[in-house]
């Protein structure tokens, strides 16, 4: 494909698929994608490239014990998270730390830092109260009539997204929920709606919902994207 100097967006699309676009360049490109089908196709082609790049990663082998841990984990019935949704992730890190110490191996400095930083964040959050949080998402022009409700249950800490009125997408695409704070976007769920345009989805939220300043649902290639790349259909801003 020839480099088209007259179309500044073409130059940005590959970087966008890679997740390398700077924050300030994203809104203009996203707005352009809404109205440019050719650009959306180009974006799809670059998504495929990015998806393939992982195959080139240098080979590394996990420890043999990991498989047993996986099978043990899927054998357990689903355990409700403790007070805050963050607890299950916190528990994983505690397990990792315990495993490392029991194995007599030194935790590499990066992992210790990871543990301390994550620990600090989680301790701070658990100090807050765990009430039920509800956020109503409003529809954008891309999906008028859609509604969304994001809710964290006080008892189990489970976060759920309920949507209605969203168009059924072709198999090439799915919806993706974004949890947004300070400009960074974390994926909370990738989902499809049933024939009537509704869905109830368990959300993977690393921290209580009150930790975020905004939420959004966008249309993405099936399986999701590392960052929002498609039309926003539902949103909430603090």
């Amino acid at each position, binding site marked *: *494909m020839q*480099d088209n100097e007259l179309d500044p967006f073409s*130059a940005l699309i*590959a*970087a966008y*698929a*890679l*997740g*390398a676009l*700077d*924050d300030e*360049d994203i809104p203009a490109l996203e707005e352009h994608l809404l109205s440019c089908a050719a650009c959306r196709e180009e974006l799809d*082609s*670059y998504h*495929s*490239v*990015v*998806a*393939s*790049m*992982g*195959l*080139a*990663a*240098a*080979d*590394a*082998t*996990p*420890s043999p014990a*990991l*498989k047993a*841990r*996986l*099978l043990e*984990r*899927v*054998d357990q019935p689903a355990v409700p998270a403790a007070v805050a949704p963050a607890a299950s992730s916190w528990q*994983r*890190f505690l397990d*990792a730390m315990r495993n*490392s110490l029991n194995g007599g191996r030194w*935790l*590499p400095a*990066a*992992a210790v830092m*990871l543990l301390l*930083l*994550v620990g600090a964040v989680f301790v701070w959050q658990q100090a807050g109260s765990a009430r039920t949080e509800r956020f109503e998402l409003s529809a954008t022009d891309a999906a008028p009539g859609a509604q969304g409700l994001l809710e964290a249950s006080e008892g189990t800490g489970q976060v759920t997204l309920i949507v209605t009125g969203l168009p059924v997408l072709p*198999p090439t695409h799915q919806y993706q929920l974004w949890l947004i704070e300070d400009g*960074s976007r*974390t*994926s909370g769920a990738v*989902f499809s709606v049933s024939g009537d345009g509704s869905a109830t989805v368990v959300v993977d939220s690393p921290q209580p919902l009150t930790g975020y300043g905004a939420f959004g649902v966008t249309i993405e*290639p*099936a*399986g*999701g*994207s*590392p960052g929002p790349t498609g039309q926003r259909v539902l949103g909430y801003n603090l």
Partner: protein
Amino acid sequence: MERIARGDERALSDLYDRYSRLVFSIAYGVVQNRETAEEVTLDIFVRVWEKAEIYDPHQARLSTWLGSMTRNRAIDQLRRAKVRLQHTAEWPDAGEELVAGGELPEAMAQLRSDQARVRTAIASLPADQRQALALAYFSGYSHAQIAQALDLPLGTVKGRIRAAMQKLRSLLDEE
């Protein structure tokens, strides 16, 4: 995958045998730490177990679907922890030995062939493009962050990323 969606644990075990090295390799490439990479690997296979029904075989190969999920998850982990890595993974040379399929040689032949193809394509890029691409792919760096890391003008970085991606796309498009 259909068997996994129906709760067949043996199928999950088979999937793990085939793809755990790929998933771990990508995770390790991003987080540069074994424990964290293993946590990400575990997360990915648990997620597959819980949500196998969202995989559409018409849309993507299993290897690239898993690979995307792994990279996304690993970069997410990196960002949440706010750890700034000292060192970003590099793309291996095309000639470097691929992991043998081990106990499932035939099933892995397609994966090995795909891996060889992508490795060769990336290895054919100029070194400066490969470097910028590695920072973007493994560390999740933006243009500005790459420019800062390499002490280069922003325009130069944008040009290298664009050129690398265009070349890769044309190489990988060839059947």
